[in-house]
């Protein structure tokens, strides 16, 4: 059943358990795993910063929702996944794709609308997919990915494998009716799906407190019999540990599990959001006291796991990958005009 979070993340009492002092859980994590978590989060941050820059230059159009600040959620959960597990999310999806192992080049080129993008330039920021990496989108309608994710889990259960689907959605989507229709069926049919609520406190410009009286989301599965817990989503190690527990629950055939990740996005809802609904100080405080990447950096340095030079080498490596992706995204041609008419229907082959 629903339980209280071990370490509650809150805007009001930030950072008791992070940054300054490494939490005890860190000592159990091997050095290479810590470095990988650091690296994966840093790749997302730098990639998103570059995307923001290319947007500013007019190379990326339309809507562009950056994941900066929330990196620990997807990186921690990917560390709990195995080959064959699936993931599906909303339109704030660049981080999920990179964490799933999709190529930075293909993602960035999709952002610039080029043929080298994952969707040949026809999907854009919000619509990318990779069957190979079991990433099922990239969905632009708030909440729609929730039943779709349960459907992926339905397929795995039907096929008799032990794969799990991570279905990500935000605090905004968490108020949608289809989420509760899905909770009901997912528990009824014991579907192996982890519902991951990325509670970044704001649904576009509406804070959680202004959209619901019931401001904790992890307990909303209780009515359907789905266990859930709240997790400090700025602490990648806490996320990983919670993910492992949830995944074990699903793989054992016990049905779905809800993880409410308390997180924070540093940038606006999309590139054109001036974010006037929160104070600059609030954002600054989270950045300074709760930053997920800084947290792991501190653990690495204070625990003697990595030297400044080691971290600089990682920084350089990441910068190279991101710059290479940006170069590729600029050089890749636009899709040829003929692409207008392809991929509307799959060929029948019966």
């Amino acid at each position: 059943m629903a339980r209280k979070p071990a370490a509650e993340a809150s805007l009001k009492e930030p950072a008791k358990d992070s940054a300054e002092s490494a939490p005890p859980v860190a000592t159990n994590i091997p050095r290479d795993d810590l470095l990988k978590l650091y690296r994966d989060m840093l790749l997302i941050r730098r990639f998103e910063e570059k995307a923001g820059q290319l947007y500013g230059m007019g190379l990326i159009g339309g809507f562009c929702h950056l994941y900066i600040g929330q990196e620990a959620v997807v990186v921690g959960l990917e560390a709990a996944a195995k080959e064959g597990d699936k993931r599906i999310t909303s339109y704030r999806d660049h981080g999920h794709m990179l964490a799933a192992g999709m190529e930075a080049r293909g993602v960035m080129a999709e952002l610039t609308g080029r043929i080298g993008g994952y969707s040949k330039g026809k999907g854009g920021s919000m619509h990318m997919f990779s069957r190979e990496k079991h990433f099922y989108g990239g969905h632009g309608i708030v909440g729609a990915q929730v039943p779709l994710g349960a459907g992926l889990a339905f397929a795995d259960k039907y096929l008799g494998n032990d794969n799990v689907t991570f279905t990500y959605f935000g605090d905004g989507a968490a108020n949608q009716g289809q989420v509760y229709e899905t909770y009901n069926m997912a528990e009824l049919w014991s579907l192996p799906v982890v519902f991951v609520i990325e509670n970044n406190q704001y649904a576009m410009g509406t804070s959680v407190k202004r959209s619901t009286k019931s401001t904790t989301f992890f307990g909303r599965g209780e009515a359907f019999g789905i266990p859930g817990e709240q997790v400090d989503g700025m602490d990648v190690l806490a996320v990983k540990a919670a993910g492992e527990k949830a995944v074990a629950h699903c793989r054992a055939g016990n049905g779905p599990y809800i993880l409410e990740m308390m997180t924070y996005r540093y940038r606006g809802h999309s590139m054109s959001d001036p974010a006037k609904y929160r104070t600059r100080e609030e954002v600054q405080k989270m950045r300074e006291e709760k930053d997920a990447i800084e947290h792991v950096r501190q653990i690495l340095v204070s625990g003697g796991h990595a030297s400044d030079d080691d971290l600089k080498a990682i920084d350089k490596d990441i910068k190279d990958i991101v710059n290479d992706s940006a170069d590729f995204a600029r050089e890749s041609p636009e899709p040829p005009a003929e692409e207008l008419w392809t991929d509307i229907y799959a060929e029948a082959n019966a």
Partner: protein
Amino acid sequence: MAIQILMPALSPTMEEGTLAKWLVKEGDAVKSGDILAEIETDKATMEFEAVDEGTIGKLLVAEGTQGVKVNTPIATLAGEGDEAGDAAPEAAARTNDAQPDAAPRADEPPAEKGKGENSRDETGEAPDKAPAAPKSAVETVSTPEPDASPDWPEGTPVKQMTVREALREAMAEEMERDEAVFLMGEEVGEYQGAYKISQGLLDKFGPRRVVDTPITEHGFAGIGVGAAFGGLKPIVEFMTFNFAMQAIDHIINSAAKTLYMSGGQMGCQIVFRGPNGAAARVAAQHSQDYAAWYAAIPGLKVVQPYTAADAKGLLKTAIRDPNPVIFLENEILYGRTFDVPVLDDFTVPFGKARIARAGKDVTIVSFGIGMAHALEAAETLAQDGIEAEVIDLRTVRPLDYATILTSVQKTNRCVTVEEGFPVGSIGNHLSAWLMENAFDWLDAPVINCAGKDVPMPYAANLEKLALITAADVVEAVRKVTYR
């Protein structure tokens, strides 16, 4: 080595903006995420953050300057603040990459620039004109000759079967044939089907493959689409298509568009089926024909059979089709009996209309229950010596334009018949298409017979007035034949 900071585009439509306020001054050290300036876009005042670390060199644009074009250099960032070591020169050079092609064209709007240096080089011109639609799975316009082959070989034995039995047999055969096919919906299992279409399937295939759902169309349609993404071949039964409006986001946004949005990677093999259109005396919320709605969507295929043979052959084709298919049945037709060929594997292709009755004086185009009115009208007209050619479209997407065109070129007259609302109907579309493609062959305007432009009334007399009748069709034919 200085990096130029450029005026950013901060909304999808911004071409220039006002540099409202500098929040840094020359000589300030900045790091990634620091706010450099406030910039007024066409929509709002935005904070502009630093991407690179360094020391602010010169502020090139003064506070309060209006109309600063996107990509104009607004400040310089001194490189010495960049990290030490051999990474630094490259990092600086890289972040500089805005300049070579962006800065010189800073006076161009970003949309132009976004079009890319590449495509223009390749083609010599920007591809602003869409190429003509190729012959695709859906558009059969360019087929020179209609396919008039019979649906089953001559001499094949036939048996009498209701539409209901035909649909059930189609599902059973396909579930037998392919383990990935399963049926889900309200009351499809233990209740044996609200309209008894799925009667016996639970006993035959078990609860894994015949899945009863709660009454939550939005949710279970989404789960069905997700299962299709996951490699299964769901048949999602809606108790009626009226309730599918709760699920229409998943049918259109999730099922129909994903293949395109994924650049061809992620198809969705799924059938949405159930009764559609008016039943009898169930009033406005339960009496609507959705053929024209779904037919408007690229990415969907839309089927509306009339006979039992078509119901069976088209449903089998639908289940095998790798695309989302809307399969519109009719409650009134469920109990009607037709000849169905006795064949091991009888299928009917999409996009091939059936000439239900040959004639030379007028072409009547219909589908689904409209065919009942069309055929009845043709009988009446024949008594007056008017020989109508009646075409059953069977699928409204893809549409068999070739068969319609060939017929109209012979008869020079056309009447369309459907049960749906008159505005934006299939008939409207065919009229426009014939005007473009058969103008010189037409001896009269095309007339669309459709339901009345009102919500379906409950009262028996009013309901009768709202629905199309064979008499409406007869009257329309008399108008276009001037007889």
